[in-house]
């Protein structure tokens, strides 16, 4: 379906796409910081770079799909052959995440300009885009790399840029600063735990290349050093992915950072950490280890279920819409972890499918909230009352996102929840399937509260005129909203990608 791009793309772009997709934003970051014009040129440049990255991701997708069952593209950095050098390794699993991250970055950076104009000081804007590019590059790097330590470096690069971006929300609300420092402390503990885990693996195998690790770990077997390493990696990446109960940094960070940052982070940052978790669970370690099977069923599944229930309840009692959505994000991470913890191809596929869909719906929701922040300067439910009449376009897109989050048929959320429930049922976890349905009912309550205020309550302040968000914001918002409906009606494209991704993990994709 996308083979045409291979004919259009120049040969050098095809040959070096795995490196270029990371190198482009890497170069763009420092350049951005020096562009003149109060950030406008930096913004245009950012849109250009994220657009190019999206094209490169499409090229990679076409390359991976050109072979039946999914090709593996290996790129040796600096010409050093893996496993000695750093390898960038693209397969069906991470090409999906690459595409997701770059598309979301492209759409959010288009809408970013009006929002940033309102929230960031003039002299900081160019630097702001520089930090955004570094964050974006880090997320792509985590996804593309095939080297365990390199993954840590990219993870920290993106995280450090993220702390800065979150802290820049202090212009609007000073609570962004404590949120940022908490995120920094927790995030650094997470990354450090991950490094300790990698250290244990390196001590027992002598390699850092993930594919090589997978092979050598099978020879080593499950000795205690490997088990400890596994535990450290699980906790470390779990912290980054906001796995319950390691999610405490997330609600504040999402509520107080600039709207643009929230929309981007909510749709990408935790997703990339979940990708890394999946990569380690299924690709580096193999399911044969008893301790891993046990940890999936005894740790990941209960954590996922606890997140679905506890955080959905917490979402109900929030009066700030961004906090509601942030808690709901943790709950949605629970769905993904539940799917992954099944340890079957169907479960992982459902988890990845939900990962993509969640990015689409949360992207749309947070963008709509950003639009309201821009025109009405408030994010409490109180401020949203009656907006259905004064900003119908923004709010209709918001409603589509909300329905998708609940899982109403004909939306993306329904498709992936359906896939998840059927994967659970086919493994005989009917009790978990019932909890998924119950948690969706909770989603009806917390999103229903907001929708009721938006469409049925009279405006708080009748003087407020009819005021829509600017066109620059509406277009990407509606693209995401329509994507939710498109996936809901014809989910084959995305679910096919998720199926391929899961297949790549289970059919010897690691080797």
């Amino acid at each position: 379906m996308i083979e045409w791009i291979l004919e259009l793309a120049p040969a050098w772009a095809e040959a070096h796409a795995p490196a270029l997709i990371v190198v482009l934003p890497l170069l763009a970051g420092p350049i951005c910081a020096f562009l003149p014009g109060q950030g406008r040129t930096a913004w245009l440049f950012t849109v250009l770079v994220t657009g190019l990255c999206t094209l490169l991701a499409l090229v990679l997708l076409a390359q991976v799909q050109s072979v039946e069952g999914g090709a593996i593209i290996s790129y040796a950095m600096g010409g050093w052959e893996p496993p000695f050098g750093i390898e960038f390794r693209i397969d069906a699993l991470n090409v999906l995440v690459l595409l997701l991250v770059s598309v979301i970055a492209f759409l959010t950076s288009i809408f970013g300009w009006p929002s940033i104009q309102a929230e960031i000081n003039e002299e900081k804007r160019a630097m702001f885009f520089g930090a955004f590019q570094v964050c974006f590059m880090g997320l792509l790097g985590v996804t593309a790399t095939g080297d365990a330590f390199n993954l840590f470096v990219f993870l920290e690069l993106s995280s450090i840029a993220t702390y800065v971006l979150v802290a820049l929300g202090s212009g609007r609300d000073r609570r962004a600063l404590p949120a940022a420092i908490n995120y920094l402390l927790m995030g650094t503990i997470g990354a450090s735990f991950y490094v300790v885990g990698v250290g244990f693996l390196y001590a027992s195998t002598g390699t850092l290349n993930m594919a090589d690790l997978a092979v050598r770990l099978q020879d080593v077997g499950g000795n205690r050093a490997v088990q400890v390493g596994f535990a450290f990696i699980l906790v470390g990446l779990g912290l980054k992915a906001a796995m319950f109960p390691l999610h405490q940094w997330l609600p504040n960070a999402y509520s107080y950072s600039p709207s643009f940052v929230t929309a981007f982070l909510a749709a990408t940052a935790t997703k990339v950490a979940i990708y890394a978790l999946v990569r380690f669970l299924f690709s580096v370690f193999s399911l044969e280890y008893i301790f891993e099977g046990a940890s999936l069923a005894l740790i990941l599944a209960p954590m996922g279920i606890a997140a679905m229930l506890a955080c959905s309840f917490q979402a109900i009692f929030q009066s700030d819409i961004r906090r509601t959505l942030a808690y709901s994000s943790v709950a949605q991470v629970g769905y993904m972890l539940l799917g992954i913890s099944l340890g079957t191809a169907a479960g992982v596929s459902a988890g990845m499918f939900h990962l993509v869909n969640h990015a689409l719906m949360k992207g749309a929701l947070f963008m709509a909230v950003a639009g309201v922040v821009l025109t009405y300067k408030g994010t409490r439910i109180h401020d949203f009352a009656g907006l259905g009449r004064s900003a119908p376009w923004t709010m209709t897109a918001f409603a589509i996102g909300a329905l998708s989050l609940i899982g109403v048929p004909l939306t993306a959320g329904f498709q992936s929840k359906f896939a998840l429930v059927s994967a659970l049922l086919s493994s005989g976890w009917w009790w978990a399937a019932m909890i998924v349905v119950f948690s969706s009912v909770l989603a009806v309550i917390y999103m229903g509260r907001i929708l009721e205020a938006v469409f049925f309550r009279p405006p708080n302040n009748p003087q407020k005129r009819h005021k829509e968000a600017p066109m620059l914001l509406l277009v990407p918002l509606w693209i995401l909203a329509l994507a939710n409906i498109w996936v809901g009606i014809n989910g084959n494209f995305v679910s096919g990608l998720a199926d391929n991704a899961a297949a790549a993990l289970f059919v010897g994709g690691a080797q």
Partner: protein
Amino acid sequence: MLEFILERGNYWAIIGLMMIGLYTLFAATNLIKRLVGLSIFQTSIILFYISLSRIDGGTAPILYGKDAKGHGGGHGEEAAAAYGADAAHGAADAAHGAASHGFEHVYSNPLPHVLMLTAIVVGVATLAVGLAIVVRIREAYGTIEADEIRDMDLDVALAQYAEDHPGEANPA
């Protein structure tokens, strides 16, 4: 038993540092102290990697004597290039306990040192960003005690709640 403990002295030191760092991180309310705890924690990880790379009787991983000649004909650039390839080999083998790979001398594994160089830089960057945020917190709140900041934020949240729900009792 005593021998078991003493033989692993470096690991006990690492575990001790790690626990001190984590405890400081969680127990301190002063944000600077928390960052100090974080640094101690990261230092323990650096020590962990460095002790992984040590080999009994091993020297710094720079080829010398016969090894340098045998691998590059004495030509400086050749030696440097050959060293790169062998270092990568050595890295993989050293962890298996087989350090000498046709070498006259035993060399420590260079790879963990290089990794930790990167980790140190990452740690410095994190610390700098953290301290910068603490400076901004001090400017915005007038304090760097986490519990005082939390109290101030709670007051703001309660005021907002009272504004949204006029006439209701205070939830706290």
